């Protein structure tokens, strides 16, 4: 991926092709436990105590995206595509990468398509996906 880096900005200022700075995370047991409790997932533990729900990787990607770039209040998630080529386990160190795949504006609202990947240290992808978001443009909508 190439393009200008998105750090310390708001989503409203992002442009097509812009990249988010890669963010590295360790999948700690505490964070995974907190995620499983939040989503009330009663199925994942049956597959093994170290298993991580695949959607946790998507949450991790969101966490990375909004770490340095502010999401406008009132932002709405319209669509999501995700694929999980391999399972991950607690303790793994992963890197989230993302870029603005497309951007449009209509009737005072911005529409963003964001491509995301989560990969291991050896660059093996463990999740890839695309989020479609919309949020209001204009004064007073960013807090």
């Amino acid at each position, binding site marked *: 991926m190439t393009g200008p880096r998105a750090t310390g900005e708001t989503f409203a200022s992002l442009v097509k092709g812009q990249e988010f700075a890669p963010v590295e995370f360790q999948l700690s047991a505490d964070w995974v436990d907190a995620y499983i409790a939040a989503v009330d997932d009663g199925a994942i533990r049956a597959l093994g105590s170290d298993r991580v729900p695949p959607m946790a990787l*998507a949450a991790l990607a969101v966490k990375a995206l909004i770490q340095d770039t502010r999401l406008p209040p009132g932002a709405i998630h319209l669509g*999501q595509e995700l694929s999980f080529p391999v399972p991950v386990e607690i303790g793994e160190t992963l890197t989230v990468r993302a870029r603005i795949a497309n951007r449009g504006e209509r009737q005072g609202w911005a529409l963003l398509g964001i491509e995301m990947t989560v990969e291991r240290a050896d660059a093996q992808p463990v999740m890839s996906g695309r989020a479609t978001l919309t949020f209001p443009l204009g004064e007073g909508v960013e807090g």
Partner: protein
Amino acid sequence: MSGAPRPGDQLPALTKLVTQEKITRYADASGDHNPLHTDPQFASSTQFGGPIAHGMLVLSYLSELMTVEFGMRWLRGGRLKARFRGPARPGETVQVSGRIRRADDASLVCDLECRNDSGEMLITAEAEVPFA
């Protein structure tokens, strides 16, 4: 389901209660503290009229349904394509259900949906599971 999955087979439905506590927990885990989810005063000024759950929180219920039904197959190559069609609000019970649309030697494709207790559609999705 019993035996080989076939087109038309229903997946066992999953029911979840959405609460503000779960929304707050999800906000903490994901770092997404958008006030649309966590600030009733702000949320009441939006078109939703009050707080709504993160779409990814509700989408996780669809993934859980796939985990229940397909286990490690879902974790080893699952794909999900979803559209968020309506908000889930705290206090609502949502039901996730699905049906197999296509099955062959390589994979199967399911149509999933999530509705609230008024029957309103919240999410529609297509999920693919490798079946080799």
